[in-house]
């Protein structure tokens, strides 16, 4: 099953299970989203539960917040994560804070799905990975699946969670295949997954960077370097324990994330490790994120801005050398 299918299945199963779940967003009904991830859902659930909206990201996100506060369980589809710039007030000043500001009286069980990731030659306004912004905000949970299995299990958890959850799907991973069991399952938030066991170096990677890390790990194998690859799966809550333990074991760590490196996800994870495994580290934690430039359109330039397996491999070899 592909990652896109896994997301769709999770949504379909949750919509069958709970009639309060609905999805809204642009071009999601008959079109099934621009990435065709939701194809067919409208046929089963109708246009009232798979709701095409105007191009009003702030507006329909706000409506979702209100619907979530009053008994529904909305899933909001933000076509490109870059457009999350338009919903920050609704997500951050409203959704994330409603529970706290009301002293626990209200809750906001909603999911905001958005895409992230570059390398589609889509240029600066359609290629960003802005998840660090959301991870910075108390009251939100932030999920980044890297496999179909994780995508399905995490999406189900997200929908059943009584809090606003921001769920980022990498556009380039929708076609990625992987095994997904037939039976119902969920994956708890805050539990990192060791995607590959290793002893010499820990590579912590998120979303599509997990594959990059695994590919780098394979290249490292030829040099007799055994890399452990860990996917936090949720950057908030963050499974610090698993990350730190691995760091203590291997004593060398690389953190790879597709967001801008500066003031991004790699900074938090690197400093959690630097603190938690301080006395075990042989070398500084190496951060690898997107270059500090807007994503360029031109293919050779774009390719230079995003972390690659070669880059991770090089960094790992240098660390272990």
């Amino acid at each position, binding site marked *: 099953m592909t990652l896109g299918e896994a997301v769709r299945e999770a949504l379909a199963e949750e919509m069958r299970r709970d009639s309060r779940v609905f999805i809204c967003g642009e071009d999601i009904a008959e079109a099934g989203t621009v990435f065709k991830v939701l194809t067919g859902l409208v046929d089963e659930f109708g246009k009232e539960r798979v709701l095409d909206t105007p191009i009003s990201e702030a507006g329909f996100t706000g409506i979702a917040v209100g619907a979530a506060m009053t008994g529904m369980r909305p899933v909001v589809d933000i076509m490109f994560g870059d457009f999350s710039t338009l919903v920050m007030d609704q997500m951050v000043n409203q959704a994330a804070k409603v529970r706290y500001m009301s002293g626990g009286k*209200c809750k906001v069980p909603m999911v905001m799905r958005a895409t992230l990731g570059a390398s589609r030659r889509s240029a600066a306004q359609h290629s960003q990975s802005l998840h660090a912004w959301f991870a910075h905000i108390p009251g939100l949970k932030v999920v980044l699946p890297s496999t179909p299995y994780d995508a399905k299990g995490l999406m189900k958890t997200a929908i059943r969670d009584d809090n606003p959850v921001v769920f980022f799907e990498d556009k380039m991973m929708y076609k990625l295949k992987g095994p997904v069991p037939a039976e119902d399952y969920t994956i708890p938030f805050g539990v990192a997954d060791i995607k590959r066991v290793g002893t010499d170096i820990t590579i912590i990677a998120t979303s599509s960077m997990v594959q990059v890390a695994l590919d780098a790990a394979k290249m490292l194998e030829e040099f007799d370097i055994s890399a452990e690859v860990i996917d936090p799966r949720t950057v908030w809550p963050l499974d610090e324990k698993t990350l730190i333990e691995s760091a203590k074991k291997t004593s060398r760590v690389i953190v790879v994330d597709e967001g801008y490196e500066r003031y991004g996800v790699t900074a938090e994870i690197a400093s959690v490790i630097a603190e938690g495994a301080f006395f075990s580290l042989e070398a500084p934690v190496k951060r690898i994120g997107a270059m500090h430039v807007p994503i360029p359109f031109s293919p050779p330039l774009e390719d230079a801005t995003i972390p690659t397996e070669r880059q991770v491999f090089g960094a790992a070899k240098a660390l272990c050398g």
Partner: protein
Amino acid sequence: MTTVLDRSKAHSESDVQQWLRMYRQMLMIRLFEEQVNDLYTRALMPGLAHLYTGQEAVAVGICEALRLDDYITSTHRGHGHCLAKGAQLGAMFAELLGKEAGYCKGKGGSMHIADPDTGNLGANAIVGGSAGIATGAAFSAKRLNTGQVAVCFFGDGAMGQGLLYEVMNMAALWTLPVIYVCENNLYNEYTHNSETLAGDMLTRAVGFGVPGERIDGQEVRKVYATAKTMVARVRAGAGPAFLVCDTYRFHGHHVGDINREYYRSKQEEQQWKTERDPVKLMLDWLTTEKVANRAQLDQIQNEVKAEVEKAVQFAMAAPYPAVDRVAQDVYA
């Protein structure tokens, strides 16, 4: 005395009850706000408060037309909406003082009072910020088929926020039971809205498929009558509606806004206060129409006063939340 009874007979008992209830509610808001101002002046209240004084007829007239389970969303100037929808004085004061006994356990304060039990989804300190929430509540009401309506209160300043138009459009497309109520008190903080509003408010809403009305917001019976018809229509499935209530805040933008002649004249304020005070207008009408006699009206006044005072005392005496509560309620 006989005259009074004679005249009141012209009015049905239920009308009389309703008028006196609306009067009492307005008075309660008025006295509540006086206490707030007093607490602030005596440096007993943390932060700020935006007093509702002068606008009471809007909240009371509209909430009188609502069911207890109908939804409202409110604003930074929200005490009136909360009380009119049914909030209790003690928990209100306690919240304003940051006490554990407050509606939000002290975590929200004046600008964030929420009381789901009375349908109040919360005040909002982001201007226009609750337009989505109210529309979403209407969405739920329609989907869950509960017959509820949602009322979104906001100031004329919120007409500057694009969000409002985005959600009006969707409310119209999806025929949602939501009423957008603009309390037009002429000012956005310290700026007259002639500097901030081009075009025409009602036309704006019509452009998004939302029909509207504009009324005098100082006459509570007028507000109620308009709201009643509008709520019935919206509840029956006619789709969203827009209501502009012309009104005026008697105090500063917030309790600390004392010297305000640079943005509005004392004369203007005086005129509204003497000629257009909603509480006084209602009192006068009740008297003129002989709905109630002086003694009855005095009694209401005394009762409300006593309630308010008792509530303040309760709140003042109530404890702050324990510091370890700070990390609770972030997640459900």
